[in-house]
């Protein structure tokens, strides 16, 4: 570790079961603040499951059961005192397929703030502008704020989803293969955006795309069959993997 930075998120002996299926086994991991951490690995290795543990989206899956500990700034996220609503405001998520609501651009961005009870008009306008700017979308949509979000291009829709997330002022941003539905140009756009976001936020990205992980992340986590195989600075993981399996995966021998 570069400095004695306190981890933002920390998983200790994390096990997750979907009924009898052991989806995550004994994962122990620290996520540093203001860095981009990429989680890589073949399909079904548990990388999305791990990501969804951090904002407890797995709670929606019937039969999911968690053992072990996950903390956010030292606070146990599974503690009974932890409010799901508060957790998810602090740990936001962008999904694989852009999922803007069937509302206008404006209503999408302001959805979170409104749900959390912010009503002054000028305050909402501020949030709207700041969030869209933060997602690099302001220039494109400033004149189309009241048009249906579903009319935007798919890349812009994903940016809108990021803007929608920024509007609730999270601390951690979880990106679940955010570019898999996008064209290369939009993908680059999102990667640039991630870089900017990491100045303020802790960013975690699950990706299939090796190049993306290599060029856009600070640290990388390699997972296989629900196990965390290797974790370290991206450069080291990609050039001098300590584990044989990591090397095999990175060099394209499987996955």
């Amino acid at each position: 570790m570069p400095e004695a930075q306190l981890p933002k998120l920390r998983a200790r002996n994390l096990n997750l079961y979907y009924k009898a299926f052991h989806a995550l086994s004994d994962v122990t991991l620290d996520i540093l603040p203001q860095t981009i951490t990429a989680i890589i690995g073949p399909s079904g290795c548990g990388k999305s499951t791990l990501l969804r543990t951090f904002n407890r989206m797995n709670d929606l899956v019937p039969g999911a059961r968690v053992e072990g500990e996950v903390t956010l700034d030292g606070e146990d996220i599974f503690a009974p005192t932890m409010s799901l609503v508060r957790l998810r405001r602090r740990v936001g998520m962008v999904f694989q397929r852009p999922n803007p609501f069937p509302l206008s651009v404006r209503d999408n961005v302001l959805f979170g703030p409104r749900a959390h009870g912010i009503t002054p008009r000028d305050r909402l306008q501020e949030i709207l502008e700041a969030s869209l700017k933060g997602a690099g979308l302001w220039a494109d949509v400033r004149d189309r704020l009241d048009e249906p979000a579903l009319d935007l291009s798919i890349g812009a829709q994903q940016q809108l989803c990021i803007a929608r997330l920024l509007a609730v002022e999270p601390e951690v941003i979880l990106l679940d293969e955010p570019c898999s539905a996008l064209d290369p140009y939009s993908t680059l756009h999102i990667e640039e955006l991630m870089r900017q976001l990491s100045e303020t936020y802790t960013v975690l990205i699950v990706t299939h795309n090796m190049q993306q992980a290599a060029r856009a992340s600070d640290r990388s986590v390699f997972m296989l069959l629900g196990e965390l195989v290797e974790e370290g600075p991206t450069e080291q993981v990609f050039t001098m993997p300590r584990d044989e399996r990591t090397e095999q995966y990175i060099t394209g021998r499987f996955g």
Partner: protein
Amino acid sequence: MKTKEWLIEKTLLLMALSAVAMLALIAIFVFIEGTPIMAREGLGHFLLGRKWAPTKGSFGIFPMIVGSVWVTIGALVIAGPLGLACAVFLVEIAPRKVADIVRPAIQLLAGIPSVVYGFVGIVVLVPLIREHLGGPGLSVLAASIILGVMVLPTVISISQDALEAVPRTYKEGALALGCTHWQAITRVILPAARPGITVAIVLGLGRAIGETMAVIMVVGNAVKVPAGLLDPARTLTSNIALEMAYAGGDHREALFATGVVLFMFIMLLNSLAALRFGRRRPSP
């Protein structure tokens, strides 16, 4: 092989056409039978006349029009919110096991013959209304409640389909933003399901306005414009069904004319619905 397929195709086409032709024939028949008396009596007289004494030459169906409208709206006021709430509960809130039991039970509700609803209405509901709210019990209110219950399965199952058709990602997106489950339902899922829910309501309306048997039993069938929910009334359908068996001559024509009016009502309703869905999702 080719000829076989050709044959199947044409047979299906023929079947489809004959179904449509039958409907058309029924409509034409009703119009042919019903329109002459409207012309003779004068449309205004027929639609707005308040005296219905068909064996004595008075044919005014205004009370029945008002009765139908009241009863149908009443049924909707009951079945709409209740059905929607039930659908939301089944889709979003109820544990799987509960939903698996409740769903078939609701389907069962749709299979109960309407005369049973009517009978329960007479024996249970009507006395309740009479004792606690006053009036003769046989009333617009009684008919609305019975119809509301009868329409529930339609409203519930179609709303349910609409809610289930809402992409999961909408709900996930809302939850990931820190919304409560309830906020996700009211702010995303329900608005997204709105077109389907409208269909549910319109189909429910159609069933309510056309239902006859149960209504005859509990609505009182008095030929007068109801002054309130506790007053008896007569609906267009009950007017036809009550008197058709014995009617002859002008009386019979007047009943067919009642059918024409009912037909127009349902057409109007359906085209209103079509108009609403025809439009693209309105941008809020």
